[in-house]
């Protein structure tokens, strides 16, 4: 099913395909040393820098035994000389067996998948999609809770612009969750996602205070509230400390609660949380490597 298919948007994968990736990721975590792609060449094209995502993908590729070609900075490529994305993709797809790409423009990965002879894995296209992040979030949720069904998921921070929360919401909707959205008024969950949940009959509540939802949650998904997002800086000053998680706040939470964050964190999770066994964000990042191994191996048909 997944074989030879590009992964551009999380909506490209069915429920069964998502479950398959999660199962494979668990398999790679148990046995990370599986050089199934020896002799293959995988291109890693980063038209904008993203060190964490690139290192995670390239680690996954190396663990699978394939070789990596590509660039990590567009300034080093002919794209700065005016070469079109189309030309770059056509050329590279003649060299590599699969292309991992990140691009600042939205829709770039979809377009590339239509030009390329080989599958494309979208490692982020502007504010649009970053499906491997969603899959690693799902793997992390599944692993820590033992399953994905009927979970209570609190999303905190920037729910308006945060693409990770939007994609996670869409993908989790297969599994009958209940959502708690905690955000300042300026950064509330957009109506289109609430309409989507209404249509699917999925429950959600909106809050402005994290304390209201902490005792209920199985998963606490934190995101960064960025100053640039506010039209009114006074409003930012008012809320900037409201969406910060401190260790003491975790006292009255469920024993199975785990705290997730797509990283990098700035100050929205204070460092005293790091030692708490409920903090899961660094392990979540590590899960990204296994998830990306699972994505690449299944697209190239070796798993």
């Amino acid at each position, binding site marked *: 099913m997944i074989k030879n298919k590009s992964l551009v*948007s999380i909506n490209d994968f069915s429920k069964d395909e998502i479950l398959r990736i999660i199962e494979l990721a668990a398999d790679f975590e148990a046995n990370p040393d599986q050089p199934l792609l020896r002799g293959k060449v995988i291109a890693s094209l980063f038209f904008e820098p993203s060190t964490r995502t690139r290192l995670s993908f390239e680690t996954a590729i190396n663990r699978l035994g394939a070789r990596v070609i590509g660039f990590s900075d567009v300034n080093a490529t002919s794209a700065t000389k005016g070469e*079109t*994305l*189309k030309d770059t993709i056509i050329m590279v797809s003649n060299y590599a067996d699969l292309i991992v790409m990140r*691009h*600042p*423009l*939205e*829709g*770039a990965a*979809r*377009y590339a998948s239509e030009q390329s002879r080989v599958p494309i894995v979208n490692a982020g*296209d*502007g*504010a*649009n*999609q970053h499906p491997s992040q969603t899959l690693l979030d799902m793997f992390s949720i599944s692993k820590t809770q033992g399953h994905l069904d009927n979970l209570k998921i609190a999303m905190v921070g920037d729910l308006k612009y945060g693409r990770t929360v939007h994609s996670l919401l869409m993908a989790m909707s297969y599994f009958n969750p209940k959502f708690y959205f905690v955000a300042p008024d300026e950064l509330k969950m957009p109506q*289109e996602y609430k309409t989507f949940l209404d249509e699917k009959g999925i429950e959600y509540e909106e809050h402005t205070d994290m304390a209201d939802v902490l005792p209920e949650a199985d998963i606490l998904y934190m995101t960064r509230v960025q100053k640039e997002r506010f039209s009114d800086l006074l409003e930012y000053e008012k809320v900037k400390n409201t969406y910060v998680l401190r260790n003491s706040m975790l006292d009255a939470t469920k024993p199975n609660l785990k705290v997730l964050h797509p990283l990098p964190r700035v100050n929205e999770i204070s460092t005293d949380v790091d030692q708490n066994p409920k903090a899961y964000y660094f392990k979540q990042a590590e899960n990204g490597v296994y998830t990306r191994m699972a994505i690449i191996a299944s697209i190239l048909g070796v798993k």
Partner: protein
Amino acid sequence: MEQKELKVSAIKNGTVIDHIPAHNLFKVISLLGLADIPNQITFGTNLESHKLGRKSIIKVADKFFADDEINKIALVAPQAKLNIIRDYEVIEKKQVTIPDEVVGYVRCFNPKCITNHEHITTRFSVVSKDPLELKCHYCEKVTSEKEMVII
């Protein structure tokens, strides 16, 4: 009725497109490529209309549009009515319908969309017909009627 007819002269054979909102006349002209065809064309605009306030009418001599060609104008003139004329007689009346897919004639409103940076044929699925909402196949953002720009 007679007086209204006098404002735009009759054609022997061809198509009359009526009930175009006056402010969208030029969009209809550009969508149908009327500026680039040799046919005789008569326009009337700012005519009174009960439904639209001010409407426009276009008469194109010796031209009969295919459905997918004419349905393009449904985005800017959803109430447009076509009269097919043969020998000064209306032999058929048609209405336009909003297509499910819009390919190549609307610009994505998202400045960060790849289609606004490279030469790419735009593609939208119509997610809502009233109000009109077009979802970009590439950036997945929704362009509303207000933001819609015809290429």
